[in-house]
């Protein structure tokens, strides 16, 4: 490994902290912003961050899918929902319900407990570095071993499409 490779690796490791922090900050905005539009923008930041983490894990296809489906489709849908249902930024409306204290305790307990377990658990590092998953291998797995769930998923999406139209149409 040359000197520049080492420097690049250090820079990538430093950038990981920025990405992780941005992801968690976006998630916090998504659940705490009083204005739902800002909450959706925080969700966008978190989804972008997760896509960047996929790149760190050398799952390039999943990163692209994350951007296309989550940021491109689901987030657009959520923004439409926010704009179609009024009273989004009413400051007199409390953003959380009465269980906020108990839920904060539960979520913080689970999150900190899991984090402690992850950092202190006996994770035996794999001896040899695994090769990243090749795109061709991923496609082959999808349509050989998982062909039935794959086709069922398309059926589910068709059902969701028709069902959403029926539910949301005007009488």
């Amino acid at each position, binding site marked *: 490994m040359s000197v520049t490779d080492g420097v690049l690796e250090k820079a990538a490791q430093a950038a990981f902290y920025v990405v992780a922090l941005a992801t968690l900050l976006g998630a916090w905005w998504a659940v705490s912003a009083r204005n739902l539009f800002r909450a959706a923008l925080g969700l966008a930041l978190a989804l972008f961050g997760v896509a960047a983490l996929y790149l760190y894990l050398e799952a390039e296809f999943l990163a692209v899918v994350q951007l296309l489906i989550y940021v491109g489709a689901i987030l657009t849908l959520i923004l439409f929902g926010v704009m179609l249902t009024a009273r989004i930024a009413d400051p007199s409306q409390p953003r959380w319900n009465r269980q906020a204290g108990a839920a904060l305790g539960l979520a913080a307990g689970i999150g900190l407990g*899991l984090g402690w377990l992850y950092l202190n658990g006996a994770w035996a590092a794999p001896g040899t570095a695994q090769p990243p998953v090749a795109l061709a291998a991923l496609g082959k797995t999808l349509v050989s071993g998982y062909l039935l769930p794959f086709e069922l998923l398309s059926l589910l999406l068709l059902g969701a499409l028709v069902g959403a139209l029926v539910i949301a149409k005007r009488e």
Partner: protein
Amino acid sequence: MIVPLPYFLVVGAGLFAMGLFGALTRRNAIGILMGIELILNAANLNLVAFNRAWGTPEGTGQVMALFVIGIAAAAAVVGLALILAIFRHRQTISADEIRLLKG
């Protein structure tokens, strides 16, 4: 891996905790949906990270993550359609005020 596995898992745990908090406490139904999306993203991050560290070259973990993304899309579509229908009938999407089935 440039960054060790537990770092990704800690980010996933943080995303899960915040998504759980949002899904439990948001008064707005769309806010609850956002919390659920965060929880699904946390699960996906764990699947992909474990697949990278210990998985086989077939990429089963990534296939699972793809299925989760597909089902999340279907859930978001139906959920938002329900929210729109409820808003049209009741003029509110606050989860506290939707109690048609409460006796």
